[in-house]
């Protein structure tokens, strides 16, 4: 079998030969043509088969012709120059970068185009003279690079990225390096003439360098400590802030009174290492967003119909024509008529007026199969039309729709992690109290024994015990784990999530799309065996249809070969009929197939009510049906068995209970199975579990799980393609790694152990340091060695340990 020169797919249905090359479809051929004509065939040299089959675009982007809408998307629009940044999920290789950055060869109106590969965006500058956003988007779509435009793009203005931490880190590092050099001469206490003379100058220079460290780079610790104390929490930032403050004050006093050179190097080093830990803890995935709601799933605009009334003789108004315009989804009001085309999304709650609707709600409700709706039926927002054009009358504006109201639940405005006490915070409570006690006791001791060094001891204790190593243990361990997770296609929002993951004792799964795949369907045939000829015609008939079930059946049967059909008819929502030579074959619903068939099989009619079936009949008789059942993800049973050892498991499905018996059979015992769960039910169920003191991990995939994902302690979304929409969550797991859920949980639990070991390790350093401090022997050079040594050894320890853990679990090569 040949592979397409453009997209690399196998040319199974048709092969188009063109210029000695094979293409799987006309779309691919057209793209090749466009590129070839414009001297852009280098595209194919850069990577083998880099292309993407372009999807059908007719009318899809018409709304961009509306100036109000397109202006919302533009970043810059003045003097005939427009700039726009478009998200293109299909960017995947260097050829993509190359061809997109050479857009000017395809249309001279494009001035520059710049791709940001990690973000999968392209920023295009073009002259608006005879060219507009619509033309640009269509041009991109023609090449297979469809931009992803959603309601979110039109409603939120982009926020600038926060780079404060990088600046702080830069300043601390800069000051640290300089202060180190300046303090070096005095470490060795040589009473050399020139050193004696210039040491004051050196000291004041160090003081100057330390100012931005304390008041800019380290300022966050004071703020955080203050906030912690106000809410009566002794967080780890309290001893750190005390440490920084004491270091700075004592050092300043020392150089003012000419007692010594101070601890400026330790101060700058401490802040630098702490910020480094903070920085390492972050791992951002530019191409993912963990904050999405329905807005990034909904379209910006829909086609609105309005009737134009022309007055005749000033008296009677009569309807002359229906006109279409592109209306923003936010503008839709009750009573508006809108048009939804094939594979478009219904953005508002509406009533079906005209046309056959076959709505796929799998993403919003969890129902596995598309539902047929008749004129007059109520359609909820969020469904995707699967067949033909329909006309709807709007019932509620978008914000008040059934689905979007879920987002008004308070859980979406709450910060989930605020109530969570991390391991570091727990330790720091005891640590801070112990530290203050030691400082007090040793000071009191010295007050009686040798008053002159009492203050020295007090400050020394606070300096040396500053929990730099403790504060670094968690960020580096969790930062490493975050990266290991990321390399295994489990993208976690931040390091706190990993800590929460280690406490999980209850796992709640969604069914549709989470436990089941949406790519394959298990299909079984029940009924009279089909003859070879019948199979041939059946396959040919299926081939002509675009219904998802037909497509699935076709892939199953396409080994049969095909023949030319004499006629083919499709009745939307009912079935298809193909005629070839002697006989005709009907495929579709039971009623459709048995309509004219003489023999009706009454037996089959009653069974399989909850299952998805496609019935087959010829002109003479009813043959039988193909039963579709959801195919569960590979290794699902193993995952459940492994998890059931230390977690309670629940399956919450928005679907009907047609699969209950099967699930009970294949899953281990003691698993709660709940069906027909609405989005609010899921949210409330998770809440009830939490009220019982459980730590819940919610694994879901669609908008219908959003509430539960937000409510749960950790919400993880399973995604077949991480570049497309996924609802707000704490982590995104690539569907191919579903089996590894248990491994991830184990790793997070072991990671917490690593942090605990690191704490013990760093306490050991603290004891040594305290030994120096309470005896009054803390020289600047001791602090300057001990502090970086403890920090670096903790970093090495956690990094090596997490690496070994990852290796053991086969997550690291």
């Amino acid at each position: 079998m040949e592979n397409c020169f453009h997209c690399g797919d196998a040319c199974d249905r048709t092969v188009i030969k063109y210029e000695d090359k094979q293409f799987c479809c006309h779309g691919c051929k057209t793209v090749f043509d466009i590129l070839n004509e414009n001297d852009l065939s280098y595209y194919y040299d850069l990577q083998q088969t880099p292309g993407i089959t372009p999807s059908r675009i007719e009318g899809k982007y018409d709304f961009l012709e509306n100036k109000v809408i397109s202006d919302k998307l533009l970043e810059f629009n003045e003097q005939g120059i427009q700039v726009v940044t478009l998200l293109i999920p299909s960017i995947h290789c260097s050829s993509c970068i190359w061809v997109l950055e050479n857009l000017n060869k395809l249309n001279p109106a494009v001035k520059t185009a710049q791709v940001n590969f990690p973000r999968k965006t392209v920023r295009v500058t073009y002259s608006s003279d005879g060219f507009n956003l619509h033309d640009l988007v269509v041009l991109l779509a023609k090449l297979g690079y469809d931009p992803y435009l959603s309601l979110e793009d039109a409603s939120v203005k982009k926020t600038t990225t926060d780079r404060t931490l990088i600046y702080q880190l830069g300043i601390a590092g800069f000051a640290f390096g300089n202060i180190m050099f300046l303090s070096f001469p005095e470490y060795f206490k040589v009473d050399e003439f020139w050193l004696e003379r210039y040491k004051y100058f050196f000291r004041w220079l160090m003081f100057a360098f330390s100012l931005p460290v304390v008041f800019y780079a380290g300022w966050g610790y004071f703020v955080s400590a203050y906030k912690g104390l106000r809410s009566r929490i002794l967080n780890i930032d309290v001893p750190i802030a005390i440490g920084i403050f004491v270091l700075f004050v004592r050092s300043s006093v020392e150089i003012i009174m000419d007692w010594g050179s101070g601890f400026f190097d330790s101060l700058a080093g401490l802040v630098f290492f702490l910020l480094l830990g903070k920085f390492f803890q972050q791992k951002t995935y530019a191409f993912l967003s963990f904050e999405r709601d329905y807005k990034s799933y909904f379209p910006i605009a829909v086609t609105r119909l309005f009737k134009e009334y022309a007055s005749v003789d000033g008296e009677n108004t009569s309807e002359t024509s229906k006109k279409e315009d592109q209306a923003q989804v936010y503008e839709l009001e009750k009573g508006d008529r809108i048009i939804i085309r094939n594979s478009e999304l219904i953005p508002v709650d509406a009533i079906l007026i005209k046309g056959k609707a076959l709505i796929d709600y799998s993403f919003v409700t969890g129902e596995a199969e598309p539902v047929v709706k008749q004129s007059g039926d109520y359609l909820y927002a969020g469904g995707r039309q699967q067949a033909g054009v329909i006309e709807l009358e709007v019932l509620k504006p978008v914000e008040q729709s059934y689905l979007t109201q879920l987002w008004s639940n308070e859980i979406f405005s709450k910060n989930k992690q605020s109530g969570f006490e991390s391991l570091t915070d727990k330790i720091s409570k005891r640590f801070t109290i112990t530290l203050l006690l030691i400082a007090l006791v040793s000071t009191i001791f010295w007050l009686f024994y040798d008053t002159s060094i009492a203050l020295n001891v007090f400050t020394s204790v606070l300096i040396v015990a500053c929990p730099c190593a403790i504060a670094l243990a968690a960020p580096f361990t969790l930062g490493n784990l975050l990266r290991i997770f990321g390399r295994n296609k489990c993208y976690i929002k931040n390091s706190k999530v990993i800590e929460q993951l280690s406490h999980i004792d209850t796992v709640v799964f969604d069914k549709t799309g989470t436990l089941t795949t949406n790519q394959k369907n298990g299909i079984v045939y029940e009924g009279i065996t089909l003859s070879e000829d019948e199979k041939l015609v059946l396959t040919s008939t299926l081939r002509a249809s675009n219904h998802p079930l037909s497509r699935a059946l076709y892939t199953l049967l396409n080994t049969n070969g095909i023949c030319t059909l004499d006629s083919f008819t499709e009745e939307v929502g009912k079935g298809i009929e193909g005629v070839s030579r002697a006989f005709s074959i009907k495929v579709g619903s039971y009623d459709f197939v048995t309509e004219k068939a003489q023999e009706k099989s009454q037996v089959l009619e009653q069974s399989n009510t909850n299952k998805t079936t496609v019935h087959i009949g010829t002109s003479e008789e009813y043959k039988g049906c193909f039963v579709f059942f959801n195919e569960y993800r590979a290794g699902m049973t193993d995952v459940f068995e492994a998890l059931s050892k230390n977690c309670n498991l629940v399956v919450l499905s928005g679907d009907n209970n047609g699969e209950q018996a099967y699930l009970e059979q294949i899953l281990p015992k003691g698993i709660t199975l709940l069906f027909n769960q609405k989005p609010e039910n899921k949210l409330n169920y998770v809440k009830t579990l939490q009220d019982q003191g459980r730590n819940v991990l919610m694994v879901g995939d669609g908008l219908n799980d959003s509430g539960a994902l937000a409510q749960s302690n950790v919400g993880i979304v399973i995604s077949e393609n991480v570049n497309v929409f996924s609802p707000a969550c704490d982590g995104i797991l690539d569907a191919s790694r579903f089996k590894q859920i248990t491994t991830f949980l184990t790793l997070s639990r072991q990671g917490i152990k690593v942090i605990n070991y690191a704490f013990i390790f760093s306490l050991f350093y603290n004891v040594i340091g305290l030994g120096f401090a309470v005896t009054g022997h803390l020289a600047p050079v001791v602090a300057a060695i001990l502090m970086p040594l403890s920090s670096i050894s903790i970093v090495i320890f956690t990094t090596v340990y997490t690496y070994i853990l990852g290796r053991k679990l086969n997550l690291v090569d």
Partner: protein
Amino acid sequence: MNIIYMLLAISVFVALVFFAAFIYSVKKGQYDDMYTPSVRMLFEDELVDEKKETSKSTNETTPRKKRLTK
């Protein structure tokens, strides 16, 4: 030995210049995309080769120059 004031002043000044350059580059978003430039860099050379052999050279010189100078 008073020269040490001068030397220190110069060294601190040089350090500050580099520091300012760092802040500036972060602010301008030079570190926002760490991947694409590494790929883009490789195109230009090959593009020139490719072009010399096959192209009809219409609007070829201007856009490339633009990109190179950017």
